[in-house]
């Protein structure tokens, strides 16, 4: 066994704890993909760590949590079934229709902002201030032909991400959305997988204000997600208003 590999073995535990950073972290991520011994040890450490919460004093979640999860899961399943219902010959129209809808919403947003600037303050102005949301388009050369559209709701905390043209990933890998501030740690917007056609439609919890976000990007990560991007930006956006 080489001295280099000895050092990598030393770091498997810290990597399992997601406690490495920078080049050391990226090096371990690359290594466990090629070394069966380290990958096996990593899996055992991850399983052991996954059991640690069992040692905590158990606390019951609030009863309404399941209701919210079930509702969201049913909505997502329904969207999946709708995709299967739309005839193949009409599926080419779905993205142009979506683009048309988003363009219409943007135009409406511009019109509302104009109305606000023209009217005096009052209850009707407050109603007009309800913008429909903000749209961010992610593009890049990381995956040719791929794109993503992030629509952030008016509350700034929730949104939806529509992805197309991304390569379906093998087991153990996932895509992850990032919100990167100018001078702080990137925050995750969640992980997602695409279907066999390379598409996905995902609800997003927006971790920070878009006004504080410098770049929004998508990378490929291990299936449980990462604390910070470990790969290149496959898609990104750095200008939205």
């Amino acid at each position, binding site marked *: 066994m080489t001295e280099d590999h000895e050092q990598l073995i*030393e*770091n*498997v*535990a*810290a990597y*399992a*704890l*997601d*406690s*490495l*950073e920078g080049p050391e972290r990226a090096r371990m991520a690359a290594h466990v993909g090629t070394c069966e011994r380290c990958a096996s040890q990593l899996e*055992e*450490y991850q*399983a*052991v*760590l*996954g*059991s*640690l*919460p*069992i*040692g*905590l*004093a*158990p*606390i*019951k*979640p*609030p009863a309404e*949590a*399941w209701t*919210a*999860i*079930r509702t*969201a*899961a*049913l909505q*997502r*399943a329904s969207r*999946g*079934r709708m995709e299967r219902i739309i005839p193949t010959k009409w599926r080419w129209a779905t993205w142009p229709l979506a683009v048309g809808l988003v363009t219409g919403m943007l135009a409406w947003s511009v019109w509302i902002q104009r109305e606000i600037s023209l009217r005096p303050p009052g209850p009707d102005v407050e109603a007009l201030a309800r913008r429909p949301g903000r749209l961010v388009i992610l593009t890049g050369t990381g995956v040719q032909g791929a794109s993503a559209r992030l629509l952030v709701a008016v509350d700034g905390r929730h949104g939806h991400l529509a992805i197309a043209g991304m390569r379906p990933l093998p*087991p153990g890998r*996932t895509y992850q959305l990032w919100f990167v501030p100018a001078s*702080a*740690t990137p*925050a*995750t917007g*969640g*992980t*997602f*997988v695409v279907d066999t056609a390379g598409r996905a439609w*995902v609800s997003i*919890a927006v*971790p*920070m204000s878009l006004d504080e976000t410098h770049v929004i990007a998508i990378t490929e990560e291990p*299936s*449980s*997600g*990462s*604390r910070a991007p470990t790969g290149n930006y496959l898609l990104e956006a750095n200008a939205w208003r």
Partner: protein
Amino acid sequence: MRGGDETALEVLYKRYAGLVFTLALRIVGDRELAREVLQDAFLRCWDGRETYDAGRGRVPWWLIGIARNRAIDLLRSRPHQARLREGEIIPGDARTSDPGPWEAADAVGLRRAITSALESLPTAQRRAIELAYYGGLTQSEIASELGEPLGTVKSWTREGMERLRISLWPLIDPKREE
């Protein structure tokens, strides 16, 4: 779940929601944020059901990993840090208590084994692992927190994890005969 059957999601939820919520609350110290983590974790499982392998183990460490990552992200968010400074959130500790009435006997046994394994670690090793796992700290941050060299912290982490693996892997190995 692979067939899009939400009944299977409900079964998974009933079995592991308490575990996920307990972990989330331990990390973020706030019930509302812990609920957000709980919902995110199960919905991500639902979204990723195509890649879930039921043979991966007795404890769904993949589900725990999703929940932990989300909780650590919230922990590190600026609003949460501000609330911590203002004393609105009090971080929990890893102390255990008597089993709740809804815990099955085998779960109680496993919990005691895990508690015992953690308590048998030297204090420094246990502290290093807890700061990383529940606090989301990097090895460098732990070294700074404890006032110790980075190499020392890495040794504690490695030795502590190896001790836990030797103690606990036989209990949670998916190939273990029931």
